[in-house]
């Protein structure tokens, strides 16, 4: 898959990955930082994401009013996102824009302004983002379930942050966090597209080479203690529809159990793939999946979904169902746990394994269909775990055996290690 991928590390510690793809006159540049919401301390939740927003607001050499247009001149799109383990920025544009894209990323690493007025104006934009998310009951429930599933690990707080932290964080909090984490030795630059590798290395050296190495950022050491019994959360708010979530502690991407668990997820809810940027945008093949049959085909739920996402530390295998009108959450939950207990107790079939492997093989193809998606995968795995895991994903999936899947089903789908969430609409829409 990545025979054209070449990697180097600059003297200041910046890792550079280049993958030549000559199918379209495009280049995608991604700049990754190994900092996400799990690196935040109490009182500063949401700082990683807010910092990401501030890093689009002008630098020493890109005045605030000239940010807009730099990439657009090359027909490009740009974006960024923050999640639990990482923060990333991207541009995809015509190859002629490569220097500008690299320039923007170098400026972003070294020279962002953090104008106090901009920090204040962005505070309300981010609170608006948080409130927009709260409009969605499914999202609200997910936040509550994750918070309940962890008692010490910082995966417990949402990437957007808690409202009171967003209301009280200062410009200096933001700037300090930026300076600590946005150093070349905490970053990876990825370039994928119609480029020449040696030329890219030279340009990256020119743009980033003089940025000084910083102290290595603090890393999270805490390990979530084993959960000792089922936890339950019930959110009761006005609404029209009931939602169920089941969260099981799951293996980190670097754990040998990750790929067997990915196969198990395919058997339960259909294969998604391992690209969090693109894979979840198309419907998974799930009509014959166990939980789809147990909940949707039985008319207890109108939809079922699940995600096993590649994360640095053990995150959650999170299953979500939308209850059919008139069906109680208790019935949806029983049908789901019955199907999960069954796979844990009786295991899977050979045919299910073959089907899941085929599905994942196809998804790995579909999710890498653009220079942007390829760039995401290289940077994501380099930042969150290791490139090796990504490069050998297909082989590892092919090597998963029936007994591997049966073992992880027993080990991870345990009722005493799950958190159950109910969103129960309380009817009406008034307060």
């Amino acid at each position: 898959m990545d025979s054209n991928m070449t990697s180097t590390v600059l003297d200041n510690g910046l890792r550079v990955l280049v993958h030549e793809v000559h199918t379209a006159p495009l280049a995608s540049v991604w700049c990754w930082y190994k900092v996400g919401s799990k690196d935040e301390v109490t009182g500063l939740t949401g700082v990683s994401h807010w910092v990401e927003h501030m890093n689009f607001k002008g630098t020493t050499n890109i005045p605030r009013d000239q940010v807009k247009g730099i990439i657009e001149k090359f027909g490009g799109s740009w974006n960024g996102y923050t999640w639990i383990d990482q923060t990333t920025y991207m541009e995809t544009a015509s190859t002629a824009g490569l220097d500008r894209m690299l320039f923007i990323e170098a400026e972003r690493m070294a020279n962002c302004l953090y104008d106090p007025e901009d920090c204040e104006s962005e505070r309300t934009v981010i609170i608006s983002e948080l409130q927009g998310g709260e409009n969605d009951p499914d999202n609200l429930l997910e936040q509550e379930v994750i918070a309940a599933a962890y008692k010490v690990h910082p995966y417990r707080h949402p990437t957007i942050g808690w409202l009171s932290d967003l209301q009280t964080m200062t410009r200096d909090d933001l700037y300090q966090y930026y300076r600590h984490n946005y150093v070349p030795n905490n970053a990876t630059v990825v370039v994928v597209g119609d480029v020449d590798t040696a030329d890219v290395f030279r340009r990256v050296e020119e743009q980033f080479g003089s940025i000084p190495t910083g102290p290595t950022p603090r890393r999270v050491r805490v390990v979530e203690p084993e959960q000792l019994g089922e936890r339950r959360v019930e959110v009761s708010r006005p609404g029209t529809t009931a939602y169920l979530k089941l969260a099981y502690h799951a293996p980190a991407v670097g754990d040998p159990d990750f790929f067997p668990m990915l196969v198990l997820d395919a058997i339960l809810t259909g294969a998604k793939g391992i690209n969090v940027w693109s894979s979840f945008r198309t419907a998974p093949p799930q009509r014959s999946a166990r939980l789809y049959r147990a909940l949707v085909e039985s008319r207890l739920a109108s939809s079922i979904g699940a995600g096993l996402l590649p994360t640095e530390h053990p995150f959650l295998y999170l299953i979500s169902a939308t209850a059919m009108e008139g069906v109680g959450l208790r019935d949806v939950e029983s049908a789901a746990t019955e199907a999960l207990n069954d796979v844990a107790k009786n295991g899977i079939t050979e045919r299910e394994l073959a089907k899941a492997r085929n599905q994942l093989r196809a998804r790995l193809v579909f999710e890498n269909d653009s220079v942007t998606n390829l760039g995401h995968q290289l940077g994501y795995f380099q930042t969150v775990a290791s490139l090796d895991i990504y490069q050998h994903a297909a082989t590892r999936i092919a090597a998963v055996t029936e007994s591997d899947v049966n073992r992880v089903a027993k080990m991870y789908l345990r009722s005493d290690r799950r958190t159950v969430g109910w969103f129960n609409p309380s009817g009406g829409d008034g307060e």
Partner: protein
Amino acid sequence: MTMALQKGLAASRHALGNGVVIISKEAHTVPAVTIQVAVRAGSIYDSDAQLGLSHLTSRVLDRGTHRRSSEEIAEALDERGVSLSVGANRHVMTVSCTCLAEDFEAMLELVGEMVMEPSFPLQEIEKRKGEVLNAIRQDEDNPAATAMLALFAMLYPNQHPYGRPAKGNVESVSRIGREDLVAFHADRFAPSLTTAVIVGAVDGDRAMAAGERVFGSWSQSAGAEVPLAHAPSARTRQERVISMMNKAQADIAYGFTTIVRSDPRYYAYTLMNNALGQYGIGGRLGDSIRERQGMAYYVFSAFDANVVEGPLFVRAGVNPANVDRAVRSIDDEIRRMATEGMTSEELADCKQYLIGSIPRLLETNGAIATFLQTAEFFGLGLDHDMRLPALLDSVTLDDVNAAARAALDANGASIVIAGPYQR
């Protein structure tokens, strides 16, 4: 320079004897194929008594054919990891399928069965109907969806097919029976109304041969077209508040009707809309409401010319305390664009952006397939991607400013606010 710039997509188009159009484009970015089969069977063909019929048909079309049961279809898709979905917009229902290249023939055959000979099993209709009803209830609790449904009802009043909810409502969907789906299929699914687009790692001859094999012997006459009334711009301002006090944020939907897709001013409108609510992070609207005033995480405008005069609308999600200020700010930008127009620099920027975006927007099989379907639907020509840069480039400042004057009138705006807000 790469082939994409020299020759464009250079897709092949072939009309079968029965009228089915097959369009194919070979692309080897990944060893996969996207199939999109579109039939002129969208929601405009719903009768007033059967709102949601097209949508429900789309949910059941892929759940059984005269040759295969729902379970057999599920196995055929899942054992190959195929991504398949059926969606309907106002005019067209589309079966979209992405599969590995090795599965292309088998999947085209399956998609063909769904389109030509669905069996609409009773049990499947009941299941999918339940899902649709649940989705309607979810929309009722979603301020963004609620605001958009209400805006379209205001822009296209009097049961205009563009103003009706595509999913239907609880009463209309509950009434739909199997005989209605069968009748809808008999009326709307015909070779002369069908276009199959195949993009990916199959060569043109292979794609055409498969298309001919699957669709070549299909025979069915098409039902009559439905008449569609014009949708002139409103002369008076209308505002509607839908209070949803259980929500955290209010959604604003603000819009007008504009022009049809075949109108020569289409590209001027596209450029004007880009400056108003897209360029950078939400254009002028984003500069004002997000960047300068910090009021919204999202604010943008969208322009969607169609067979009937399509909408140009603005969307924003804001704190309820800021609703009035946000609406005033939208008014200000609308008035400023209508009276002062764009600057020549702004126009040059938007042109450069939209023209430069073409290779990026035509990178993936799925995006190419959608582009080719749109070009076929509106009769834009197989070489539309090659002509598009000149069409955009030839637009003058007078053209965009005339478009702004014609389209944007704050005194004729239709406005919906849905969320924790009361007047």
